[in-house]
């Protein structure tokens, strides 16, 4: 049997080259980690009919179906067309529904379970993930984005190129406060100790408050209530072999519109500065090379941040390196 396969196209199509010759695996995108159960039948059919009867749940909340023969890719792409159509129906720009996934560089936008279920979440993470998916997919640039409902960061937004963390502005009505100090004690024990009790009422230190909204949850009288929704954007976190590091705060108190625009702008930045001689280049390494200042200028182009927003002047990346000389290469 002759196997003549363009592996670049195969990868772009969301399949992968595995250790077993001629055998591939398909990744199903699940934006926001939330999938209509009707698609399970298709995933099951692909796994049973073309795969080895198993499915792997990926770290980015997709499904990976292993043990597929590369020859069957066209058949499988046709079989999964309802899933692709589902993306299209949500507004994702896809031309050929029968052709499988049109790109795989930009990874699935993952999300914690969000406020559809979790009491701590400050917004509907699944909905935002889908909005981002519509904006950035399909795209070949290697970008990882995750959105999380609160600073607990269950989705590990701090390990992404762009992480979105839900913020809420807590509003305090002293006349409703009975001084039980549930918020004060909780903030000290579980958050950052931003609340103190003075003169029988609660005082919030905005410099310590990370706007997680726990005070609102703990309040028995609704003295603390929810103000506007905001987002903290953390950037350039990554794993990888070369220089893993946690993402750092870029902007606090951004609104949804700005978040989307900044993400969109980041693709223009990549386009402008990516080293085209390379097979691929992560956005984080581009920023490392070109500098945060340039990145900031590019991504904030035409962005109207809310008055409250705060933008970092510089970012103190640490992370770690295995060998010192990699810095100089």
């Amino acid at each position, binding site marked *: 049997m002759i196997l003549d396969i363009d592996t670049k196209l195969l990868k772009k199509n969301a399949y992968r080259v595995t250790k077993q010759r001629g055998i591939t695996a398909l990744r199903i995108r699940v934006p926001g980690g939330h999938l209509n159960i009707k698609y399970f039948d298709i995933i099951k059919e692909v796994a049973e009919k073309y795969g080895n009867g198993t499915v792997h749940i990926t770290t980015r909340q997709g499904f990976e179906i292993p043990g597929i023969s590369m020859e069957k890719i066209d058949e499988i792409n046709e079989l999964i067309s309802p899933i692709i159509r589902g993306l299209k129906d949500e507004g994702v720009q896809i031309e050929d529904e029968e052709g499988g996934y049109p790109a795989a560089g930009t990874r699935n936008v993952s999300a914690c379970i969000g*406020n559809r279920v979790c*009491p701590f*979440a*400050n*917004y*509907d993470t699944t909905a935002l993930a889908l909005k981002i998916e519509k904006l950035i997919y399909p795209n070949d640039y290697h970008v990882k984005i995750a959105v999380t*409902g609160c600073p607990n960061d269950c989705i590990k937004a701090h390990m992404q190129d762009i992480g979105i963390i*839900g913020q*809420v502005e807590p509003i305090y009505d*002293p*006349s*409703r*406060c*009975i*001084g*039980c100090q*549930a918020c004060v004690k909780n903030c000290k024990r579980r958050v950052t100790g931003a609340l103190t009790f003075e*003169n*029988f009422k609660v005082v919030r230190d905005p410099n310590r408050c990370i706007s997680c*909204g726990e005070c*609102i*949850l*703990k*309040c*028995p*009288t*609704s*003295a603390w*209530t*929810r103000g506007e*929704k905001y987002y903290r954007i953390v950037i350039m976190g990554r794993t990888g072999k070369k220089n893993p590091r946690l993402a750092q705060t870029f902007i606090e108190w951004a609104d949804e519109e700005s978040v989307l625009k900044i993400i969109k702008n980041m693709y223009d930045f990549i386009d402008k500065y990516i080293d085209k001689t390379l097979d691929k280049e992560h956005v984080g390494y581009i920023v490392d090379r070109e500098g945060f200042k340039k990145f900031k200028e590019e991504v904030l182009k035409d962005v109207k941040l809310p008055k409250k927003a705060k933008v970092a002047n510089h970012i103190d990346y640490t992370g770690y390196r295995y060998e010192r000389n990699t810095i100089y290469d």
Partner: protein
Amino acid sequence: MGIELDVKSFDNALKILSKKYKIFAPVRLKGKGSFSDTDLVTYGEISSYKDIELSEKSRYSPKEVIYPITQTLFYFTEDEYKEPEIDDKGIIVFLRPCDANSYLKLDNIFLKNGPYEDNYYKRLRDKVKFFVIECTKGFSTCFCVSTGSNKFLDYDVFFRFDNDKITCDVKNDEFSYAFSGKEVEFTPEFIEKNEIEVKLPDIDKISQNLEYVFNHELWDEYTKRCIACGRCTVSCPTCSCFSMQDIFYKDNPKCGERRRVWASCMVDGFTDVAGGHSYRQKYGERMRFKVMHKIYDYKKRFGTTMCVGCGRCDDVCPEYISFIKIVSKVTDAVDRGESK
């Protein structure tokens, strides 16, 4: 006889009444629920029919209309005590029979307990006009029939809200001028059966077996389960405890105020005495104290059960502790204890 109103004539009545009254009703505050993208249903001032929220039980009761969470008792300037003024408008409250009855329960504490009437309570309470909302179905945690708070006949005006068809019975002639519409046959109805029926304990039996009930092992469970957050007491329409606080103003320390603020027997600090001692340190003991007040000792004192059966305590408990279940356990224990 009743009067049939449409939304327009109802709104017109509110407009007329608002000249002399502040009008309160259950309202929906968008996005003000504890969890994101949820609403808070509570009591607030209204100006039209569309402001009234009837589809959901309010998280907080109407008690704060006459008994605010924070109430200034005195303003201090140097050594002078000055009582705050209140505005001269009356108070109309749209409420269900259980909540209307809760006002009578508060009356017992503030007006009848001890040798004095509480003047701060009385001056607001005296203004209240009861605009009772007909409630024939209740909600899933209601047990007002069991506590005998399902009816309230001493209303000023009684309303049936049937979608946008409104029928009212104006019992207090003082309000006749505001409501005009077609005269119709109208008999106010009250809920006769809740989904939940609770057998309240016989208070004489408790009296005879007080130590047995107080030391019963049923309370131990709540030492483990309860987190002493106070949500049950805050949402309760009949809880009335408060603490006094004196403060001086940061920007002008010579002036300040003395106020009273709701307190909760479930929350730490309620029994602290000078020198560091406190009582009922176990949460199970606090639960016992609260439950017994609601179903036993208040009744012994005033002849009526304190709890009105609104079920808010069950609705708001983050630890899923059911007051209703505790009452059943107490009744069982009392009945069994007596047969021993």
